[in-house]
């Protein structure tokens, strides 16, 4: 035992530097590897095509529905299509595959036999996933804004500011989705099916019901933040209409200030706490579980 410990201590040689430096270096390498995995080969092309979809659709509808004001396009594509379909889907693609892809490709062994704790491996991979998805979201949300507002008559509110707010809201949503789907990816091999069911039932159905159950959805909080920070009033022949309130089942007639709904700070707190909880739980599970590569998963 002592001999082994001595040997161990002797191994803290200059090749690895100090232990803390070497740990950070290992995790940094893992982070870079995670980023490269997310963007290598044809992957980025597929994701780019997916993210370009709203911009392409905007081009189509700008051509076919020229009398619809840009704020309507913005609402439909940036605040409906992207957060309801694209963000959860991209988060599902990336986050559920963080560990599962490594397991399916049988490359997880190369990570497990390195001097990084399993929980740290998970969190670093999650961080790489969050970086990738947030960057992609920011870039393509901005592109969508450009396509919507380029050459169109802009509203009074500053478009770059609206775009920045939208990017922040989307980033928040995608972070929560990634943390959630990362956890699901650890818990089940069928994470894609479970994820899709979650997206369809919770984010698609429950979020659009004017009942308390929508408090369990990510999109509800992001919608509230968007509603409270941006104006979605459009004019049809001189008459104002709040398209967000109608579409998001917010009863502004009886509760114009939306006092019955959470405030921005609460929404932010809920989403961040939920993300931390999902990530923490997943890291804990990761640190305790075995990853079977060649040996049978169960009897």
């Amino acid at each position: 035992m002592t001999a082994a410990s001595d040997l161990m201590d002797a191994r803290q040689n200059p090749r690895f530097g100090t232990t803390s430096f070497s740990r950070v270096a290992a995790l940094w390498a893992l982070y870079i590897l995670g980023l490269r995995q997310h963007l290598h080969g044809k992957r980025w092309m597929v994701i780019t095509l997916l993210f370009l979809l709203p911009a392409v659709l905007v081009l189509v509808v700008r051509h076919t529905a020229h009398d619809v004001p840009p704020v309507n396009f913005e609402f439909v594509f940036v605040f409906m299509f992207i957060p309801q379909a694209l963000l959860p889907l991209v988060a599902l693609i990336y986050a559920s595959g963080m560990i599962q892809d490594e397991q399916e490709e049988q490359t997880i062994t190369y990570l497990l036999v390195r001097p990084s704790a399993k929980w740290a491996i998970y969190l670093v991979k999650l961080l790489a996933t969050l970086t990738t998805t947030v960057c992609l979201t920011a870039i393509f949300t901005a592109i969508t804004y450009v396509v919507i507002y380029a050459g169109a008559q802009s509203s009074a509110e500053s478009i770059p500011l609206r775009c920045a707010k939208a990017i922040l809201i989307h980033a928040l949503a995608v972070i929560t989705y990634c943390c959630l789907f990362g956890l699901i990816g650890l818990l089940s091999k069928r994470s894609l099916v479970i994820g899709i069911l979650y997206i369809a039932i919770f984010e698609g159905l429950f979020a659009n019901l004017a009942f308390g159950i929508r408090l369990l959805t990510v999109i509800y909080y992001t919608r509230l933040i968007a509603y409270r920070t941006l104006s979605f009033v459009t004019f049809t022949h001189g008459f104002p209409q709040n398209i967000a309130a109608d579409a998001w089942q917010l009863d502004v007639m009886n509760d114009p200030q939306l006092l019955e709904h959470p405030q921005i700070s609460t929404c932010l707190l809920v989403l961040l706490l939920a993300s931390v909880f999902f990530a923490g739980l997943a890291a804990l599970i990761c640190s305790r579980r075995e990853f079977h590569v060649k040996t049978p998963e169960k009897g």
Partner: protein
Amino acid sequence: MPIFDQGYQHWSGELSGHAWRWLAITRHGVRVGLKSKLLRIVLFVSWLPALVLAGALCVWGLLEHKSSMIDPIVQFMMFVNPQVLAEPRAYRLEVWTLCFHFFLQTELRFSMILVLLVGPSLISQDLRFNALPLYFSRPLRRIDYFLGKLGVIGFFLAMVTIVPSVVAYILGVFFSMDFTIVPETFRLLVSTVVYGLIITLSAGLLILALSSLSRNSRYVALFWIGIWFVSGISASVLQGVEREHQLRSFAVHNPSFPPASQWRDARRLREERRVRLDSWQLQNSRTDWRPLVSYTENLSRVERALLGTDNSWRKLSELLPDDRDVNHFLVDYAGPFYPWYWSALVLLGLFGLSACTLNFPIKSLDRLR
């Protein structure tokens, strides 16, 4: 020293014909599929709508015979037009058609989930583990292999579309206690079976094509989700924007508020405007291509054409007390009304694309035969 041929050793016994060789692959695939607990759960849940369908047809049969057994149920059928309840036999075909329509709409969603569960690994896993030589070193042709794999999808889709429809149909016929019903409703049975085959061929070939493009079944599943989910949402968004555009275009010539001189007739004018709007929307619906973007909407459109759902809605709309409400009723419940063959062409195009895709990626492995 004799040198023996190291190549393929031909089976010296007698081989059966090619007709059923694919069945071995299908049987194996189904067995593997049924080992999944999640798949069994989805299958079970997807049979629940079939129970509702069978129940609805049986209730209608009893209603036709004015059976007292269903009196407690009739109280809850307030959503059905009283005239239909009074003459259930006269509206039998329409009610059956709509029951089958709602059932198939629900099962379409389950079919997509089943394809997601079963399909992605069908070819990709064979590619991943180099299992194709195991197939092609036997007297199997490419077509046998693909048919076998397609059979797996077909089995599961038939389990949720064709089998429950047929069972529900037979139950409905028995409960109606009137076998003259068969000629009247037989088209529904045939349509359901044909529709089941269309889903199997279309979705089956599509997922096989996707599965042959990657060795990673997760990516295949993601592609499938993209086609199903993203295409559906894109179509909805496009339709939403188009509706807004139509309302605005309509409002240009039909202002929401009449001029002050006509305020006395405001109510009548608003009513007339609504009627014109319904008519305008119905008219536009006939040429709106946007639903074609959605894969499931195309399948749905073909299903409605096969069952004749639109005719059923039209017949029910005749019961409305005010003729001016007919278009509104049709806009709300039936449609979209674009020609069904547009969707058929889209599905045919996807079918051709899938067949071409399947023809290329695995072609190199034919060297083994």
